[in-house]
């Protein structure tokens, strides 16, 4: 089981802050995880409508969309950061 977190407008569009999912074996990268989520429902499709502007982190470190999700305990999706 993998914990998936959503922040800011990604959270608002998905409609939840987090969920725990069993990722299928053919989901090996962040990009594949996004595609799998998009197929789950229109709220995900809307959140990832422009996947190039959604950022990801695995276990609290920034990763690229090509990163492997193997062994990940926590995967987060969020817009480009705007703090400071």
């Amino acid at each position, binding site marked *: 089981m993998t914990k998936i*977190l959503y*922040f*800011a*407008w990604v959270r608002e569009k998905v409609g939840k802050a987090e969920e725990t999912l069993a990722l299928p074996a053919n989901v090996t990268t962040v990009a594949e995880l996004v595609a799998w989520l998009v197929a789950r429902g229109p709220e995900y499709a809307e959140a990832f409508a422009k996947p190039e502007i959604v950022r990801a*982190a695995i276990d*609290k*470190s*920034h990763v690229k969309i090509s990163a492997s999700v193997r062994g990940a305990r926590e995967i*987060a999706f*969020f*817009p*480009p*950061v*705007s*703090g*400071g």
Partner: protein
Amino acid sequence: MGVRVQTADFDLSREVKQLIGGRTDVGAIVTFTGTVRDEAKGQPITAMALEHYPGMTEAELERVEADARQRWPLQATLIIHRYGELKPGDNIVLVVTASAHRQAAFEAAEFLMDYLKTRAPFWKKETPAEGESHWVDARESDDAAAERWKS
């Protein structure tokens, strides 16, 4: 050394004193305070909310701080970032750097700000005087500012 993510406000003098009070080897102390402005892109703003990713925020700020301490001879550093509901004029972020010499303190403070703006997982939502609250887009100028340290 230190990183704090909190809803509470901070006091400049108290933080600087706690960080380096009593030390006599420090020659230069730079502080940067970021505050909520009352307008954005020409529109009046009445409030701002900051969301963050607890745990990752602290980890990223600590990485940013460690990077700075590798690049410059710093005697002390501090990063405080607030989250939650804020009003125009409120403090958002504090960065403090201390070094024997001023150029290291200045450069490290700029570096910390540039890097935390592009790496620390915070998201701003602004409430304009008229119309609906909206999420603030990341600024391209912030990416450019962080890029300049990569040479």
